[in-house]
């Protein structure tokens, strides 16, 4: 459809003049002028030829993303680990080292057999169990201490004053978070860009 661009332009500019004249007098007339102006401007913009990128644009985009194809499919962390080059190198190195080590295994067992007796092995096992017991006891005591401290804190935090202080801290944290997020978002607003020209 070829609308006469001059007609659209004339209607638009006339409606803008009417809008200005009516803005203080009649809200209905102002609204009508606004609608006419908008429609005429839309017609005018339709007359503008579309701005397209140079031919072959899609091919150039595909060349830039080529290295990343195929698109990463949803894979679990375990899958990603197994697929990673580092993991494969580590497994290959482990297998190679084990294969080489097998050559010296009989000699190693003979040496160990002369050095370590059955009594040593039993003694080592017993000592390990005793050590483990000690560590577990220590961990239980530390846990008990935390539990006691937590209980004492909970009692003191139940007081109205402490509740107020906690609420104030939470509010300050929340406001700070919102302000920070706002700053980061505004970073991409046009007010943070030097105006063109």
């Amino acid at each position, binding site marked *: 459809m070829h609308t006469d661009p001059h007609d659209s*332009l004339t209607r638009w*500019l006339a409606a803008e003049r009417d809008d200005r004249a009516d803005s203080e007098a009649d809200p209905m007339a102002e609204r009508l002028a606004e609608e006419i102006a908008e429609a005429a401007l*839309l017609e005018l913009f339709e007359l503008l030829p579309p701005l397209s*990128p*140079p031919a072959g644009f899609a091919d150039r985009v595909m060349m830039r*993303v*080529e290295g990343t194809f195929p*698109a990463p499919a949803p894979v679990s962390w375990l899958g990603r680990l197994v697929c990673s080059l580092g993991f494969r190198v580590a497994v290959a190195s482990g297998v190679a080292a084990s294969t080489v080590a097998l050559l010296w295994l009989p000699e190693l067992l003979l040496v160990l057999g002369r050095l370590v007796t059955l009594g040593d092995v039993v003694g080592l096992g017993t000592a390990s169990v005793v050590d483990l017991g000690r560590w577990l006891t220590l961990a239980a005591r530390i846990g008990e201490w935390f539990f006691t401290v937590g209980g004492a804190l909970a009692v003191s935090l139940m007081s109205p004053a402490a509740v107020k202080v906690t609420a104030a801290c939470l509010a300050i944290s929340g406001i700070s978070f919102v302000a920070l997020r706002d700053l980061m978002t505004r970073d991409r607003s046009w007010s943070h860009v030097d105006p063109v020209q």
Partner: protein
Amino acid sequence: MKTDAELVASALTGSQDAFRELVVRFERPVYSLIVRMVQDSAMAEDLAQEAFVKAYRSLRSYDASRKLSSWLFKIAHNTAIDHLRRSSPDTVSLDASPDEDGRGGLAAVLADGSVENPAAAAERRDMARALERAISRLRPEYRESVVLFYIEGASYQEICDVTKLPLGTVKTNLHRARKELAQEMTAQGWGTETRRSDGS
């Protein structure tokens, strides 16, 4: 013809053809927005490519309940802003002849010779240049809203999503932009009978 959501789903499974189809479908509106923001056709092509690469890389985060065009416009918006913030804006005159910037410039792109007769073609070209010049003189936030609303047909809500501005601000920006465009066109001598007789 596949829908945008179907193409996105195919691209996510590794289909290059699907992503290419998306690029072909949206290259014009994305480029159109960026070229009007940065006003440099070569830079705009580079930034539009960058926007599509970013879109590809974050395709998984696309919410299929939203329009793909809005999502792409948002990426284009961020890419253009990042570029303008990185460098001092490098403007290209819309009056520049095609030889001056080596790529044809925006005015050359606008000079569509497919109109019925030479006089009408000349008037259409002059008016297109005047309108683009008026658009280029708007503040960036007004210009972006004008391009999205009047040229790309985006709704108010979509513009809010892209620019992260409140609805009222978007409406006000469009209203003021229209007034400034009208003033600029009038200042350039358009909208009078004398101009028409000059142009024909």
